[in-house]
């Protein structure tokens, strides 16, 4: 099923959104996890991202940017809000009953153990992430997308909504600042 077919299938039957989860949840969650370095924050932000995507997918217009890029865009926006205001939007959880939230936390516990072990194996990354988090979000997003997600300049431009020229100028400046911060430690 192509993305356009998937979109029209979702418009007819919202249950088909499950396919969006199946295809894109893991990569988008991975991106959020690599930006936050924290499984609980990543799970909350990913939940909010997919909730917003589900609510707005009928309005989504297939005009060159893929659903995956669109999801990265929403996730980036949520992450920026999180880093700017130190606050997560948890509108999805506020609509669940307490038992479901608890069940979610219990299931997440299994994933948490797996990721905590995984994170410990990447010390260099953890050092870089610590410094990266001290930088303004516009640098954080381009550096993370380029070096953590291996996205091209064009893809970064589509995800962040900045021009390719802006991304090209932000990257070297950001890397220099990040290097300085890493060297200070």
């Amino acid at each position, binding site marked *: 099923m192509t993305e356009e077919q998937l979109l029209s299938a979702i418009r007819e039957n*919202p*249950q088909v*959104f*499950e396919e969006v*989860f*199946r295809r894109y*949840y*893991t*990569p988008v*969650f*991975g991106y959020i*996890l*690599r930006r936050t370095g924290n499984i609980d924050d990543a*799970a909350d932000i*990913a*939940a909010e991202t*997919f*909730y*917003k*995507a*589900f*609510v*707005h997918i009928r*309005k*989504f*217009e*297939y*005009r060159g*940017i893929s659903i995956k890029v*669109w999801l990265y*865009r929403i996730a980036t*926006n949520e992450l920026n809000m999180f880093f700017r205001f130190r606050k997560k939007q948890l*509108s*999805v959880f506020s*609509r*669940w009953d307490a038992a*479901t939230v608890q*069940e*979610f936390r219990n*299931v*997440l516990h*299994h*994933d948490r153990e*797996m*990721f905590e072990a*995984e*994170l410990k*194996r*990447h010390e*260099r*990354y953890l050092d*870089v992430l610590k410094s990266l988090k001290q930088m303004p979000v516009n640098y954080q997003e381009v*550096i993370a997308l380029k*070096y*953590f997600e291996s996205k091209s300049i064009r893809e970064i431009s589509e995800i962040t*909504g900045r021009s390719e020229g802006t991304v090209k100028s932000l990257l070297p400046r950001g*890397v220099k600042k*990040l*290097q300085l911060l*890493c060297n200070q430690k």
Partner: protein
Amino acid sequence: MEPFEETLSNMSLPETGELQHRHLLSGQIIQLKEERNLTLWWVTIPLFLIAAFYMRSCYMHNSFTEGLETFINDQKMPATWLFVIAPALLIVLNAFRIKKIYFLAGSPKLINLVSAVWMNLAMITIAVGCIILYFTLIHLS
């Protein structure tokens, strides 16, 4: 490539495997329905007042604008809140909402954006109408 850039490009990164919470999350999210953050309730208050004054002017042979003018002059604080502050807030909130929908809808064409945000546009128009009415009546009195 600078050595530090090379370090960034080559460092190992944490990967995500099979996520157990995905199934629960997808099941719960698909069951949810959209919730409107903004309602027309706040705009209906000044509209209700306008309707009340209009009805009074019909049955009591009183001018519609006179009734509103009296209200605005006698009840300065509530009138300012109902006809200026609340509508101004609504304009700002709806403008943000439209911006957000534009972003979430993947930057759609104008016509498709308008069909997605017609309710917000209607609220902005009504709110602007309330503000214009208030200042016109202030100016006339």
